């Protein structure tokens, strides 16, 4: 057992292995406010990786409707319940957020899945979902908590639901990896992608039991467990489309709602992110703090960050994304010029953006948000590749093209 630093929790915690030194970490920001649950990401993944016998129940990418939906059924509620049983009433935050990359959300005083486990039967608290729980990934789709006759209005809707797109979080401290008795799961040093060694796996399903996000899945036809591979061939630039340059995973690239931005962030030896405000993900997660980890209290330090849905009751969101929710929604609702520009870069390219810049443009209007006036500028966000070459540029105001009449061939 080692002591590692988990910056999501703002403290050190117990983990089976030392923090591995990585060059980069696979990470992404999902803007829930934009997701329409079209499942294009889901099918992009399915048609690429999990279309063969034995993978019928396997959805490495899924979009579920919260609060009732879940794949597998109620995965999050069940894990939260297990943690609450292990540490009744103790799963609380000391939530005075510190402006520091090592504790941006304050300190979590409860127990992680690792700390709540007995360390003998389990490395991490968890459960093994039964087959029927994997069979209905879209159960409770579009179910709202209620339909108020008077309608709903911000800041919190009375009846609500939202879509939660999920892939493997490629956690910094993966519970699946800690739980594997054969050490068949490993985290790649070059990009932090977590993989199951298909040659060593013996299908014990301890990882399925341990992963709090339930993103490792058993395949009966090979007797092994498979999971999201972060489209690592694309990350490595092996997709012919980009001619050897790093490319975003299929689910990210296929996103119709433009909710996703993927990237590879630099990390320090203790797992915190290297200070780099020009990196789009670093900027959103650490500078603006609009994007938050999913269930940080599980303690695995997941690497998919969510811009929380602004209409949802805050106590629910705080349970799901930690104490940073109020600040994140505030900053997303009244975005800075730089953030507003950066949000335009989502899905502007399939290539991985390593840094961005904003070129300022003229003021184009004002909008009122919650009684406050917010100015809008037509700034231009520019995305660069690893060596600083420009990949893409997008302006805040969508350009308007008028079709010349003469070209009409009808």
């Amino acid at each position, binding site marked *: 057992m080692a002591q590692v630093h988990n910056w999501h929790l703002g403290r050190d915690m117990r983990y089976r292995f030392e923090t591995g030194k990585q060059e980069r970490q696979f990470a992404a920001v999902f803007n829930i406010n934009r997701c329409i649950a079209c499942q294009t990401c889901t099918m992009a993944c399915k048609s690429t990786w999990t279309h063969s016998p*034995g993978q019928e129940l396997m959805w490495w990418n899924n979009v579920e409707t919260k609060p009732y939906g879940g794949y597998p059924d109620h995965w999050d509620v069940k894990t939260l319940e297990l943690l609450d049983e292990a540490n009744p009433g103790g799963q609380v935050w000391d939530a005075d957020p510190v402006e520091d990359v090592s504790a941006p959300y304050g300190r979590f005083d409860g127990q992680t899945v690792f700390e709540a486990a007995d360390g003998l039967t389990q490395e991490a608290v968890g459960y093994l979902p039964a087959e029927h729980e994997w069979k209905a990934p879209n159960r409770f789709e579009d179910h709202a908590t209620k339909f108020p006759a008077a309608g709903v209005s911000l800041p919190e809707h009375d009846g609500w639901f939202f879509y939660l797109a999920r892939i493997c979080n490629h956690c910094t401290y993966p519970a699946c990896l800690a739980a594997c008795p054969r050490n068949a799961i490993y985290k790649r040093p070059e990009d932090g992608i977590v993989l199951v060694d298909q040659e060593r796996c013996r299908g014990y399903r301890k990882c399925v039991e341990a992963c709090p996000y339930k993103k490792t899945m058993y395949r009966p036809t090979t007797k092994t467990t498979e999971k999201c591979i972060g489209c690592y061939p694309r990350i490595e630039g092996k997709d012919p489309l980009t001619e050897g340059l790093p490319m975003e995973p299929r689910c990210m690239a296929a996103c119709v709602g433009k909710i996703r931005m993927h990237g590879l962030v630099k990390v320090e030896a203790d797992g915190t992110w290297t200070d780099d405000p020009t990196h789009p993900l670093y900027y959103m997660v650490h500078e603006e703090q609009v994007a938050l980890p999913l269930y940080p209290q599980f303690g695995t330090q997941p690497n998919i960050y969510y811009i929380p849905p602004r209409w949802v009751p805050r106590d629910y969101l705080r349970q799901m994304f930690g104490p940073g929710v109020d600040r994140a929604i505030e900053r997303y609702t009244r975005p800075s010029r730089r953030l507003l520009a950066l949000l335009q870069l989502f899905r502007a390219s399939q290539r991985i953006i390593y840094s961005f810049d904003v070129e300022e443009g003229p003021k184009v209007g004002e909008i009122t948000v919650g009684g406050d006036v917010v100015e809008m500028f037509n700034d231009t966000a520019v995305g660069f590749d690893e060596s600083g070459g420009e990949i893409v540029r997008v302006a805040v105001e969508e350009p308007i093209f008028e079709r010349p009449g003469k070209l009409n061939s009808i």
Partner: protein
Amino acid sequence: MLTRRPPRAPGWLPARRTLFFAFVLLTALILRVTDVNPAVAQSQSIVAWRVDESPDLDPDAPIWDEIQRMSVPLTSQQVTVPAGGGTVPSVRVSAAHHDRILYLNVEWTDNTLNEASGAPEEFTDAAAIQIPAEHGSSVPAVCMGQADGAVNIWQWRADRQKGLDQLGKGADFVDVYPSTDELFFPAQSAGNALATPGADVVQNLVASGFGTLEPASVGVVAGQGRFSDSQWRVVFARPFPAPDEFQPTFEEGLEFDVAFAVWDGHRGDRDGQKSVSSFVRLKVSDTTAGSFTAAGSEGGSSGWLILLSAGLVAFVAYAVVVLVIPKRERPEEESA
């Protein structure tokens, strides 16, 4: 009382006691180097008798009725994560050899038949035999061996016996698959023996510590199990010669250490979650079975009662004779 000091050697020689310890140490070193262990592990021995007809792989072959089964107690595995098991209290083992093939017949009670592992929460019944690779006096750790002592493990799994083609049928699959090339079965194309259809029912594995289990590179262990009346009976068979240095070579007249493990699929047993035994001795006998007969169970228990009672009476009588007579009245030196 004599107050004599230990006799001293001449000044340049060490004292005799030092000399004696040097002798003891030297003897111990010689024993260690030559690997001659003067002590005998005398408890539980499974004897593999030579038999005239081949038992084949039939767990219910008549020959097994003639060989006594030894009961080997199992406990839950509590040493490493994931701990568990312990629901199977014992296995009953008998052994035989014929035509230089060793047969082990392992029987245990299991009230639930679990021979599928198609659903994510389904686990198979299984049993395994563990034998140190190196035949010798120092026994490696019973849990998966240790770095300097590999173990050979034969694992029989009910789901493998049932057949891979039966797997995954529980999910009402109606899909059409764009491709069923091996490429889309990564475990299979990576050479994972577990994922390969038509592979052996018994997996031949080697390990040298936790998490190091690997398929043996060569060598096949045959096996077959049968489930009836809440009993699993599984026969393991392997020819005497070792295929490589990680597996033991059997010979008549030699003794081996064997340990057993059983997984109850119904309880979610897998990996370390199993019922395990310590090492017991397996003697490959050069005697042909038939020189003794199996006992009837009724006769057995009454025989026991008589023997125990007789022993107890004799001991009490003896103790009374020795103890009741006061010490002072007896001569200083006791005579037989």
